[in-house]
């Protein structure tokens, strides 16, 4: 059916850059770093000046909105939204490329199980963070080809 194991039968397509640095990632720093290390195709730099590409996490935001109320007017489901606004700046590009990732989960709710639901929400938030990191990393492989600029030095 055309499916093949990723990177086993043929080597992975190289990423459009060789090194990356991550800025302002806060709680996403650790999962982003380990995901990039796992991927293995790029070198992780700790200083932005040493990297070809700088991934900056501009903001992360959690929202918890009511999704469903029951006929007694009480919350039956919440919609959890985790939004990451990031940007990718490549050496030689004039403007950073914005990347937005939005992850949503439904959390069923009961007022009689508040403490348990508090933990369940934390479990979902953790799952959403992992999902967001995975999507961010994946988007990096699809960066448009760098505009060639004769005077822009790509490597210092």
């Amino acid at each position, binding site marked *: 059916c055309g*499916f093949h194991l990723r990177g086993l039968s043929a080597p992975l397509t190289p990423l459009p850059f060789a090194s990356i640095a991550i800025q302002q990632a806060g709680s996403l720093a650790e999962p982003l770093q380990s995901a990039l290390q796992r991927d293995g195709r790029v070198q992780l730099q700790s200083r932005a000046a040493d990297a070809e590409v700088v991934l900056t996490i501009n903001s992360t935001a959690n929202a918890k909105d009511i999704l469903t109320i029951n006929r007694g007017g009480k919350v039956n489901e919440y919609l959890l939204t985790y939004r990451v606004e990031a940007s990718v700046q490549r050496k030689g590009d004039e403007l950073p490329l914005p990347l937005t990732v939005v992850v949503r989960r439904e959390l069923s709710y009961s007022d009689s199980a508040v403490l*348990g639901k508090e933990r369940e929400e934390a479990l979902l938030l953790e799952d959403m963070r992992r999902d967001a990191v995975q999507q961010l990393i994946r988007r990096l492989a*699809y960066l448009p080809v760098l505009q060639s600029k004769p005077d822009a030095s790509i490597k210092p």
Partner: protein
Amino acid sequence: DSLPAGTLSVESDTLSGQMDVELKASGQVKATRDDQTVEADWLEYFVQRQQLRAGERVRLTQADGQIEAEQLDYLLGERSGSASNASFSFGRDGKTLRGNAGKLEFQGKDNYRLRSARANTCDPNDDSWYLKASTIDLDYGRNVGVARNARVEFQGVPILYTPWIDFPLDGGRKSGLLFPTISTGSDGLQVSLPYYWNIAPNYDATITPRYIEQRGMMLGLEGRYLLPDAQGQLYTEQLPNDKKSEQSRFLWKGEHVQQLAPALSAGANGAYVSDDDYFDDFGDRVSSAANVNLKREAWLSYRPEWGSVTLKAQRYQTLQDENGTVEEPYARLPQLSVNARQQFAGFSSNLESELTRFSHSSKQEGTRLVAYPSLSYAIERPWGFLRPKVGVHFTRYELANSDSSQTVRSDERTLPIVSLDSGLYFERDSTLFGRDMNQTLEPRLFYVKIPKVDQSSLPNFDTSENDFNFAQLFTENRFSGHDRINAANQVTAALTSRYLDKENGLERLRIAIGQRFYLSRDDISLDGSSSERSEAGSDLLVTVGGDLSHSLRLDGSYQYNQALSKTERYNAQLRYNPAPGKTVSVRYRYGRDELIGSGSERDTLRQIDVAGQWPIAPRWYAVARQNYSLRDKKALEQLAGVEYNDGCWSMRVVGQRYVTDLDKTKNAVFLQLELKDFSSVGSNPLNALRLAIPGYSPINETTGN
């Protein structure tokens, strides 16, 4: 053309006067000095005093605006003087204040006083509203305008009077009256008129008097602060003597976060209300639905490189309604949690631990210690992963006897937990809706083994059963909380396929299917007793969803109950949002066995939810929502309204009706007017619309239609 700075040059039909004393010009006079130009029928200039007088039709043009007047008397050096019967337009940062004044006084550079004036920020010749005042002082140095003895006239009708009001000239935050919201509904007429007080760049307050016809005068007060190491807010609503319920009603809400050191922070937050019905009476749909358990907590948190240490005290206020009793949660007074993590050579060691004293007014109280050390190893390859994990979950209870707190019983539970997580990534080229895609296929298997231990002698302080979803399928314990740990010898199998847009890597569609298979029938119920499963597999779960295109989003999930051979739950939502101001969403939700109301009563849930915002004519938008329970043949929330955006002002009229408990509904009609640039802080009905209509955009932020 390049004259020395400060030189006055004059052109006109006729010119006369004495050199260095006085100059008289008439007929198409044009006088220029630096950035200022005066055009007039006649002009006199007194050289010594640098005084310029001009008359009949005068036009003064300078960098930041233009003044047309009947007469001008102006000292060029000091930039002071006055103009009579003047019309003006001053612009800064793309914001233009226009209007006219009986007398316009120049008070030095960037300062003006307008007498008997009216002004607005609309396009030229748009007089749909204006601020009319005895005096308006404009200070373009500080970007502040102050009007005295002022009223706002909308379509010629006065709608607001104030002896004093200040407003921003540059769109920044500024103290001032925000626009009133008028509504009528279950408690008669209500008018709230918020006043925003910008105390300092990092402190502000909003004071909201709210008149409620059938209840009396309520006062709302919100203060916010932002300091280098701390931030917080305090909010209260006070109705000292409610005419309807004949009692005092109030709400307190607060939040504070303090950064003590780079990895050390502390905070407190909480809410408290006077009575059970507070949010039904004074809140909106959201606060009425969401505020059943109000949390109060204080915490201290240390986050070093290796993990986290948190000390927390937490208690809830539980609001009851007549239709059922909500079980009051335990208070945690206090809870100490320590989590640690260390990685070495592919191994990862984890410790999850907490010590909690649970307190309750009517239930078994006690202290619980939990420690869950574990060791995991990860093999990660581009084509797959394998993650074995072993751990020991230890729990110890010290329980106070419910009759006399002196007698103490203790209990323990130790459980080994072994799990193995594994997955593969397949890929292929594909297409979806004519776009080139990278399609993935990701099978995943997750095995867990936990022995069966009867836990019926252990209390349940904080544990409930997790909702059945994909995150939960890959957890060891289906219970949330540490009082119950399921028996397990089970494999979760799941298959996920994603369509990734080759152009940008966006996930356009995700389809996933998963189920848990039990290799042993052993089970633990929520009450702690050991039991046998009747079926060999869990419910079957399927989800489909994604941003199919720029404007179309699909979300759906389906859960099939194997044991009963029935559909347990499903929902599907489609949202079409082609542009700001244009959105339609439809959602259907079914649940076979769900809680209804606030008590423990259960029933089938079957709902449809349709919502949208759409332009219906140039400048007009319609908003509507219908959330209907097909099971009860009853509307849970209905909302309908229109919004009009004139460019210089916008207005909305929105009617809303929603259930607050099993047999009560509340309704209200809101009227809200916004004048462009005049108030800079948003207001509440907008938030109600955002929450009711997925994809809603405020109309003054949409462009055209």
